């Protein structure tokens, strides 16, 4: 495989890494928002 097309794999790996991290952080934010809503409901 030539170097130019192999570089695509490098970009794919770096992008995949940050997609996984961003998804996980997104899931943490969603869980936190849900907890905040629950706390608000309890306060009513």
């Amino acid at each position, binding site marked *: *495989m030539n170097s130019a097309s192999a*570089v695509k*794999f490098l970009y794919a*790996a770096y992008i*995949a890494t940050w997609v996984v*991290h961003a998804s996980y952080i997104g899931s943490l934010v969603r869980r*936190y928002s849900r907890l905040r809503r629950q706390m608000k409901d309890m306060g009513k």
Partner: protein
Amino acid sequence: MKKAFPILAVLTALFLAYAFYQAMFIAPTDALQGDVYRIIFYHVPSAWTAFLLFFINFIASVQYLASAKPSSARAAKWIVIAVGIIGVVVPFLPQVQQWLNTIGMYPSSAATTALMIPAAYFLVGKYFLGQDLDVLAVTAAEVGVVFCTIVLITGPIWARPVWGIWWAPGDIRLTSTLVLWLIYVSYLVLRHFSDGAQTQKLAAVLAVFGALDIPLVYFSIWFFRTQHPQPVIGGGGSMDPRMLHVLLISWMAFLCFAFLVCWARFQLEKLRREVEEAEALESLLEPGGSAGQTSKGKVLSRGRQ
């Protein structure tokens, strides 16, 4: 602590950006693989971080199980001390030293690694007590699974242009890493779907046995002939010092990132448990006949993650 988080987050982002710049532009190009080898700067630090987090999960789980009774806590303490002493002495025995040399490992490295077990055990025991140990265990497992997922994604992406295949079936390093990931995913699934009072203990036991796979994954490339390359540090592996320098910078950046994510996840888990306890209490205090039924449901769900 709350104020420090945004500052640390900005510093970590800058550190990660610096590590990215080093990985892409400063590290020299590999003579054989070309630029695609730069995947190593994300693949290997993610693997090391996952191992470290699974190790923390193991230590927290042992501490959690040991803290159930004073006698088991005492026994665990002495076992850990014994492991530390044996781990420091054994690598310097002539026969063991000779064997370590054949696999390219310094006795001092082996002894230092062995010392990490009692050090981590007592450190975790000092700063985390009771339920916090369980919170730490689930935090480390979850973030560890995220890093291990990255290892399993970036590995095949790297393998395709270099080996010509996405996956080498039967390769012990690849298979044992997949098994490790499955063990910790099952640990998280158990915690999520089981709502019995024993869930935390069962999960801790699973974590202790699951951790046995960590040394198998790590040492598999030292002892078995695999498609996977030999270790980049020790084990007879050699790496350009400039590449190694960038690799270590990248690992430090990912460690800072993992620390921050763990911190956020730890606080989230503590908050979740507090909310569930408050809800259970609230339903107990509710006037009317449904209190008992509702609170039972809430209390039972405390084991869920």
